[in-house]
């Protein structure tokens, strides 16, 4: 009798979890769609200055990446510590290397009077 009820609650909990995870994918795809459509529309109709457009594109891309990590890759704060450390440390390395490269190369281009503007 008791075995039966615990099995039933297990079953319903699993169904609940399934619905929650399905909704998470739906949220992910909805938000990602919105965060894609807006920058494409902004560029297509060219409604802003170039600098403002670049900032908007960067911001939307960053938010969309976070949305993908959250809803598609299921990264949250329930990770084990080393898993989160792996991701955050990789992100740190990535930022240092990319920002450093762009900084050094742009500085070089300016000093060598190479074209930096199209």
């Amino acid at each position: 009798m008791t075995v039966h009820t615990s099995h039933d609650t297990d079953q319903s909990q699993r169904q609940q979890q399934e619905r929650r995870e399905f909704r998470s994918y739906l949220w992910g795809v909805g938000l990602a769609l919105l965060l894609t459509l807006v920058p494409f529309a902004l560029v297509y109709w060219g409604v802003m200055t170039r600098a403002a457009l670049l900032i908007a594109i960067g911001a939307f891309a960053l938010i969309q990446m976070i949305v993908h990590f959250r809803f598609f890759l299921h990264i949250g704060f329930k990770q084990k510590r080393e898993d989160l450390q792996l991701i955050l440390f990789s992100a740190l390395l990535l930022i240092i290397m990319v920002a450093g490269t762009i900084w050094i190369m742009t500085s070089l281009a300016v000093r060598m009077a190479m074209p930096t503007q199209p």
Partner: protein
Amino acid sequence: MSEKVMKHPGLNLGPTHGKDDEAAETMMFGFWVFMMSDAILFAMVFATYVTSVHATAGAPGPHDLYNIKSAFIETMLLLSSSFTFGMASLAMKYKKSTLRLIGWLAITLILGVSFLGFEAHDFISMIGKGGVPSRSGYLSAFFDLVPLHGLHVTVGCIWMVCLVGQIACYGIDRQVKMGIMRLALFWHFLDIVWIAIFSVVYLAGLT
């Protein structure tokens, strides 16, 4: 209802899969280490592209070569394929019928292959306009970055075909589950790289 601490980043199989769930712990951690190193590789190629985007040497530049409609279609294909792969993952986790799993994987594969088709069409039209990789520093960097992503998607598609073959031969055993979970991570990861590509390369190039 909050779950217990996740065994590994990504969708966890959960206790109903018994030992398979435990086996996933080290396997998925290893795959995350690979994926993060792959992210560093992409980041460096991005840095190369950004620093050489103005080095057009009088050759056609972004405005002459890119097509925003084509980039938009590719983005939509890849985004929907990410969603359909999510559905495949859920079908496996909640032990739905094998047919349902294979169906979602097949839809994902079709979307992936159409993405590659549009991308190949883009490259051919660029080359037709004189944008060959050897023409300028900018074009070398472009053909380093975007086809590198395309190559990853191609490998993902081949992997998917192999997994469907394994399902047909062995059913959904532990090896197949591990394969699908790793490919899911890989596929979602490639979609994240594509966000950077359509923003940095196509949208920023067309402003």
